[in-house]
């Protein structure tokens, strides 16, 4: 059941590959804009790199949030999901994971390449990728709440960013903190375990909140 939802969303994403690629290219473009904005000085770029990559990841994850429920809302599939005998929170979890697989995972995979552009050393590249791997699912999970709350509202896209971005801050801090800590030789394990804790907490709590939000929005 849970697998059906993920499978369905992946199938839909495969049929609309353009959407997936748009998010990915948005991420790449935003990251590439920074050197153009602040200058090509390599030392500075190396210091900025984790922050830049993470902020870009936040933005691109947020940009694709609106799609999480909207098309299902338009064609009536969401109503059917609400009437499913399965717990709605499980369905929401499935949808959030599918969203991550489609929008988050590609970012994680491309991030090392972008890190090289910023002259990051090997260790930092690894830590950056690991932090993204732990952190981006949290973005999709928290984002699900925002997407559910703003379903069908005018100006929903902008509103989602207002609601969701402040909640993304801890992920941003621990994600970039991990890379910085490792680059100054402090070891990234504390930050990464905090990110892991955030991931676990949001796996447990957010589907439930997002399900409540969906019920409210569909009433």
């Amino acid at each position, binding site marked *: 059941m849970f697998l059906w939802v993920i499978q369905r969303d992946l*199938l839909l994403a495969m049929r609309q590959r353009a959407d997936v690629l748009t998010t990915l290219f948005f991420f790449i473009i935003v990251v590439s804009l920074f050197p153009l904005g602040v200058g090509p000085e390599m030392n500075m770029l190396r210091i900025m790199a984790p922050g830049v990559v993470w902020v870009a990841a936040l933005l691109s994850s947020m940009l694709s949030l609106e799609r999480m429920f909207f098309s299902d809302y338009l064609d009536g599939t969401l109503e059917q999901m609400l009437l499913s005998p399965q717990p709605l929170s499980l369905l929401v979890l499935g949808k959030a994971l599918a969203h991550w697989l489609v929008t988050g995972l590609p970012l994680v995979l491309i991030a090392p390449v972008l890190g090289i552009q910023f002259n990051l050393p090997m260790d930092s590249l690894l830590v950056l990728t690991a932090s993204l791997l732990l952190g981006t699912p949290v973005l999709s999970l928290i984002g699900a709440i925002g997407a559910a709350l703003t379903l069908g509202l005018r100006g929903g896209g902008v509103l989602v960013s207002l609601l969701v971005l402040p909640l993304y801050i801890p992920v941003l801090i621990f994600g970039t903190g991990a890379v910085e800590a490792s680059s100054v030789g402090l070891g990234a394990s504390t930050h990464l375990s905090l990110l892991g804790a955030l991931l676990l907490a949001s796996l447990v709590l957010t589907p439930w909140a997002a399900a409540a939000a969906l019920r409210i929005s569909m009433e």
Partner: protein
Amino acid sequence: MLKVSDLECMRGERSLFKDINFSLEAGELMQVNGPNGSGKTSLLRMLCGLAIPVHGEIRWCGNAIRSLDEEYHNAITYLGHLNGTKDNLTAIENLRISSALAGNEIDESEGYMALRHMGLGGCEILPVKVLSQGQRRRVALARLLVCRTVLWILDEPLVALDSAAVKLVQSLLVQHLDQGGMVVMATHQDINVAAVITKRLQLA
């Protein structure tokens, strides 16, 4: 089985309907009539538990549907005025996925049979976006063939259907009711379901 008492619905500040009372037993069909904007869809959404009435209660086998929740969902099939089909999926994928979502996993052959029965032979592996309105409605209606639920809640099931398909739906309803099922249906068209108990609810 299904019992509705003192139901009231507000849309904004306007009361759409109030004091709706009825009950439905096994083998009964209820037809909800009323002009546009009289609250037919709102009523059906309340019966599903999607919308919460401002006043009144809906009971299923003696229990309020709010408390039954997922157990109640096992007993109903709702077909809204939106088909609930995805444009980019094929007819067979749509049918199988929507059935699975409703807690009823069907295998491929069962799905093909249902689609053929609905007159969609040859369209099974076409994406739904290339089908006509009527054909899409048939894909959605095919769910009724494979579901095992007792109460069907149908919102304008006959819209966009040709006369052959209307006949098909009629026979489907008769069969379901003969087996002790229940149907609540909102429709403009008069539907001829002979030899079953039909109740009518007129919304002003």
